[in-house]
């Protein structure tokens, strides 16, 4: 009952964006995908979510995703895109209900408000989605995704949250809040895969980390195994020191302190 991607190749025209990447994510864990810009992180998530044509195999809870219909996939996993533009003047609660219509929560009308409360925006239910700030919109979309797979485990099967840079437009408090939601979902038995830019948050919340560089997987393991000077310096192409204090005089913001 895991999410297994094997030997994934994706090409954009002539350019091969992914060259044989494999990844196994277990339910109960937060699996982070990190790497420099253009390393293929979002492309890998695109293959796992079946939004891109790819070569290779992806199986979700033991079934090949190529054989599943869109609505069968939607019942097992929800996807948070990087950015969302909404076409019509839906209000916030209506956007969250769009997730409910397709997911496993079925016709439980209380779920959308609970999902909004989970991201701290219950009092925004009647606002127009188009009037929200970027960060608020991102959290409403997370609520929509949560409403789609509201129970982390259903019928003995784990549900999956696939998040593409879930904290990209959030302030630090909401970065922590969103990552806590993801971790709680995993602790309750669901599976989470998140594309991450912030290595500190990754170290704090991920159980497994895949490091991509130039379309290939450089390393895969626990944060302690993977987030090392050597691996990160090779992946990002610049000298990085893990756990080293920054040069004197530069402010240093440490998210680790928040959970202490």
């Amino acid at each position: 009952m895991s999410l297994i991607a094997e030997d994934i190749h994706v090409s954009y025209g002539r350019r091969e964006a992914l060259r044989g990447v494999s990844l196994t994510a277990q339910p109960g864990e937060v699996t982070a995908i990190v790497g420099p810009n253009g390393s293929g992180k979002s492309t890998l998530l695109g293959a796992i979510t079946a939004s891109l044509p790819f070569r290779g195999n992806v199986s979700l809870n033991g079934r090949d995703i190529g054989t599943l219909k869109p609505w069968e996939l939607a019942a097992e996993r929800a996807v948070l895109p990087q950015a969302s533009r909404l076409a019509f003047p839906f209000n916030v609660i209506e956007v969250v209900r769009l997730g409910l219509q397709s997911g496993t929560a079925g016709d439980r009308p209380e779920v959308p408000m609970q999902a909004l409360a989970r991201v701290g925006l219950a009092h925004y239910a009647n606002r127009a989605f188009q009037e929200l700030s970027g960060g608020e919109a991102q959290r409403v979309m997370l609520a929509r995704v949560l409403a789609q797979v509201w129970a982390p485990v259903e019928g003995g099967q784990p549900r999956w949250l696939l998040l593409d840079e879930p904290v990209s437009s959030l302030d630090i408090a909401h970065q922590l809040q969103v990552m806590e939601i993801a971790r709680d979902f995993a602790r309750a038995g669901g599976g989470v895969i998140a594309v991450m830019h912030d290595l500190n948050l990754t170290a704090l919340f991920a159980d497994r980390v895949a490091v991509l560089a130039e379309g290939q997987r450089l390393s895969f393991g626990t944060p302690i195994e993977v987030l090392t000077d050597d691996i990160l310096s090779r992946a990002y192409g610049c000298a990085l020191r893990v756990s080293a204090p920054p040069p004197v005089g530069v402010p240093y913001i440490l998210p680790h302190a928040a959970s202490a």
Partner: protein
Amino acid sequence: MAVVTDIESAPRDRLSRARALHWVLAGALALACIASLEIGATDVTLLAMLAKLAQGEALSQMERVVLFEIRLPRLAMGVLVGAALAVSGAAMQGLFRNPLADPGIVGVGAGAGLGAILAIVLGALLPVWMLNLVGNQMVSFAAFLGGWGSTILLYRVSTRHGRTSVATMLLAGIALGALAGALSGILVYIADDRQLRDLTFWGLGSLAGASWAKVLSAGPLILLSIGAALMLGRGLNGLALGEATAAHIGIDVQRMKSIAILAVAGATGAAVAVSGGIGFIGIVVPHLLRLASGPDHRTLLLNSALLGAILLILADVIARVVIAPAELPIGIVTAVLGAPVFLWILLKRRGLVEL
């Protein structure tokens, strides 16, 4: 995490308001139908005829003709065409994720216009057996073929590897429209005066030529297309989030696009074929309804059909009494009444949010 709960945060339910609107609009449609049968250029009125029937008197020949052969088919055609145009508008706007899209985008208008002009200008050159086959419905027939054909062409051009690109369709539609316009220009150039007059009036649209034959030939296709479009509500809601997200929440996006395009081509193609170019219904009706009860397509599509029918019937009543016994083309009425309303809405809401 503090959960704020107060009276204000209870979600307002626009969906139940939209569902209540189904019944309000259905009632209004019934009233509009009665008005349409009651009012006309002759002194014959529905009430007087009903009074006669109630007293056991037979209707005169003229009354029967006015009611059953003129007003009733015209009413049926108005309902069908108004519903077809408004539902097609709502479906296109959902598909293109743009509140200003109208069925013209998929080439129906341009193709139907070219077909009609071809029939009007060159129709007499057809062999006699073909003329006998299509009879006096040749213009309608050619307009439908032109509208349907150009939509299918655009659909083919913009579909690659089983995926239809909405952006390609939009651009190809502009190119096809320009080409159809140029060909029409050539035909206008060689047309004689009477043909030019026919062309102009066809372009303005009218329900004046309504007959049971036209209702029966366009009706089934329009009803089938509207029926298909009404099933697209959930899919179009998902599409508001973008194609990728629509797929992620379980919608078969390609299947939905195909149904939407074919339904719009069928409904609009048939409507334009029997009534000519009637503008503005397809844009303004869905827009008014979104203001009234929100953008949820599960209710918007049916409400659009009802309100479209109501508005077109009322516009037709105005068209035939305002300069009676002559008649105004209905496209003029819808534009004169509709365009200022539309502008007013735009100005009133300017700066608030995106449409």
